[in-house]
């Protein structure tokens, strides 16, 4: 196969952090090349350098034999490299179509007198959306989309570039299986057309489903490149992590205790309807469903972030009205959001300050923070959750995704909840950290917490839940026991109307 991209000796440091150290990489036309590595291994940094978004300190990048260094994004896009970014890069006030063709208006829809021809843009967008099976009006403002929908639009945007090299940095992190399926079909199409794809993901099953070649980075250094067929999961993990992880889903030792939360006929018009269920101490209740099924909205309503229109919520048998997160936390409910950037942490604050943010009131005297008490609590959480940070005072922004997730989890745990709702707790988290979070979920249940686990990764739901509630378009369609729950049954109920 033709070599499209050759990279050698690529290095990049941020201040003192060596994010990339003499990395090499070769990409051939028509291949899906997976780039693997733990959180913070340098994958996104590498890709941003390719796109011209970051300037490398050293190294060479050749696209079809021509050097690519020192070019700006616009040039790179023109030369046929496009990228789906890990963090969703949408302009909230512009429409779906406007977002999709942002930066290329002159190329695709030059109107009279140099105006933008929005009608043309809308037509093109409608075609692409259709191709992706996305039921979305091109004129919808981006800000009204769910994370998943935005991610699909980002995918459409990258595809519309007709690039020779397509970079996908965790494109499925917010997608559920159906959309992932669509994406994979498109990837197969592109492969046939000779497009090369660099694919980054923390989801092992995806990698083995589509990758032809796998390159592994660890701590910014190049570890190796192998054909996917020669690798199995444990070898790959060992390359990435430097150790072996055997049983991803450890056995649970929890006992089901008294009822903690009961929800009766909870409805929020347009989002979820007539939802009833209960969770007990020591139990993990899985919430499964397709994208937009209303699981997040349900959790938000229970946590007091949104208001339900009707229905009741009972905590330990007592009817409660929860109007704010403040009240939810006081009543022993914790919520780890799926959107950790928007709702999880405060970027400017340190690891310690984020950890204690929700429980700061218990470390104060007359309004003054008792520093020793705060430090002790944070240190304990850092140890317990094995948060990898240079120290409690490191700004949380500099942490890898997995560790940021642990900080958010730690923050919620420090409020000593009796019920914890985890919404996509392993989104964007590497395999090592995932394993630790799974262990933690089991520990939490074993220590007597009630856990609600919302996840779009069915293996996760199946591996951890005691019971599974399936939602479809906001309506509960099944409540499955551990024995009944299989990938097939869940999917069947999730698509039921």
């Amino acid at each position, binding site marked *: 196969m033709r070599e499209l991209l050759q990279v050698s000796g690529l290095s990049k440091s941020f201040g003192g952090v060596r994010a990339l150290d003499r990395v090499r990489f070769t990409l051939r036309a028509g291949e899906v090349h997976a780039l693997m590595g733990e959180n913070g291994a340098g994958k996104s940094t590498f890709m941003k350098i390719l796109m011209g978004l970051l300037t490398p300190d050293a190294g060479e990048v050749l696209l079809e034999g021509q050097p690519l260094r020192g070019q700006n994004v*616009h040039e790179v896009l023109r030369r046929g490299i496009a990228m789906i970014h890990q963090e969703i890069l949408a*302009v909230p*006030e*512009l429409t779906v179509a406007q977002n999709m063709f942002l*930066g290329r*208006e002159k190329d695709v829809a030059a109107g009279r007198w140099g105006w933008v021809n929005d009608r043309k843009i809308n037509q093109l967008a409608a075609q692409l959306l259709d191709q992706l099976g996305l039921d979305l009006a091109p*004129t919808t403002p981006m800000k009204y989309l769910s994370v998943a929908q935005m991610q699909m639009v980002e995918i459409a945007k990258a595809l519309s570039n007709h690039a020779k090299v397509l970079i996908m940095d965790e494109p499925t992190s917010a997608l559920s299986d159906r959309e992932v399926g669509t994406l994979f079909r498109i990837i197969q199409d592109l492969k046939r057309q000779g497009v090369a794809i660099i694919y980054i993901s923390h989801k092992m099953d995806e990698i083995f489903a589509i990758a032809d070649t796998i390159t592994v980075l660890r701590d910014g250094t190049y570890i190796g490149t192998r054909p996917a067929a020669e690798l199995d999961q444990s070898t790959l993990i060992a390359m990435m992590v430097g150790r072996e992880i055997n049983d991803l889903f450890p056995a649970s030792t929890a006992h089901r205790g008294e009822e903690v939360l009961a929800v009766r006929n909870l409805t929020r018009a347009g989002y979820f309807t007539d939802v009833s269920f209960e969770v007990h101490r020591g139990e993990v209740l899985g919430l499964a469903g397709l994208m937009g099924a209303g699981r997040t909205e349900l959790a938000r309503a229970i946590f007091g972030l949104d208001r339900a229109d009707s229905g009741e919520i009972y905590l330990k048998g007592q009817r409660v009205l929860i109007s704010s997160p403040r009240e939810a936390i006081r009543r022993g409910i914790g919520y780890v959001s799926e959107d950790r950037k928007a709702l999880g942490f405060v970027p400017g604050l340190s690891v310690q300050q984020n950890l204690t943010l929700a429980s700061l009131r218990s470390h104060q005297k007359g309004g003054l923070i008792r520093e020793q008490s705060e430090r002790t609590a944070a240190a304990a959480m850092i140890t317990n959750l094995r948060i990898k940070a240079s120290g409690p005072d490191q700004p949380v922004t500099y942490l890898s995704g997995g560790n940021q997730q642990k900080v958010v989890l730690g923050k919620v745990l420090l409020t000593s909840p009796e019920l914890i709702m985890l919404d996509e707790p392993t989104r964007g988290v590497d395999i090592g950290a995932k394993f630790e979070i799974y262990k933690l979920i089991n520990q939490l249940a074993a220590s007597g917490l009630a856990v609600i686990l919302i996840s779009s990764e069915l293996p996760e739901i199946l591996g951890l839940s005691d019971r599974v509630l399936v939602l479809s*378009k906001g309506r509960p369609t099944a409540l499955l026991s551990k024995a009944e729950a299989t990938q097939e049954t869940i999917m069947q109920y999730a698509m039921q109307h």
Partner: protein
Amino acid sequence: MKSTLTDKVPLRRIGQYGIFLALVLICLVLALITPKFLTVPNLTIIVTQVSINALLAFGVTFVIITGGIDLSLGSMVAVTGVVAASFAHPDTYPLVVPLAMGLLAGVLIGAFNGFVITKSKVPPFIVTLGTMTIGRGLALILSKGRPISNLSDTFNFIGGGKVLGVPFPILVLVVAFVSCSVILRKTVLGRYMYAVGGNEQAARASGIDVSKVKMWVYTLSGGLAALAGIVLTSRITTGQPNAGVGFELNAIAAAIIGGTSTSGGTGTMAGTLIGALLIGVISNGLDLLNVTSYYQQVAMGVIIIGAVVLDSFNRTSAS
């Protein structure tokens, strides 16, 4: 579920024009209280008076949409006015010279703002606050601290003349409004302004030259400030080095009242125009009602806050 998304758009539209309803309401009240309000001469005067603030507000709307701010507007009005006046004495240069020089001065200061903001990481607030002080100094230096008067009749026509009974400043306002609306809504540049203000990283990743867009908005703001400076100078038939003090706050207020968010990414020229008209109508109304000077200030503040509160509740209930 998708249908609910589409339903929302018209509702949003009304919400967006809540401030328009506030304007209409205030006009109605004034028309009822005083017969002097709803007369052609009075309305003409309001629009003429609003024109200068509106020109500045259009420029700063561009800037705010990209997430910036421009505090140098008032000083640019003074500098450009002084520069234009220096070339506008009778029987010296043809009219185009003072106009061109005034515009050039504004464009240069605006470009300087843009240059410093894009080349360094200094916040726009500080850069334009600096230019505000520098500009005031320049206006005084250029005029030696004295008003520049004795301007030609052709120059004075811009602020004082009428075409078919319509004061010339109103024509300038209309042309500027249409042009600015077109730039914002129809051109690539306008689209990029929203992108830069809405999500600068996304704009950059889409290959947009963010610095170029910012250079443009500050330069446009400077150009429009120059236009305002020229209209003002011609209206008071003098290049006044101390003109325009505090104009920036009124212009920014007009933009924000009209729905432009200081965090960037939103805003329309129509909204800004309504914002400027709102301020103008309130001020005119309070004068007509002969509210005492001190109480006028209190009333002005209360009514503006009230109008925007009304608008905001309207918006919240619509979404």
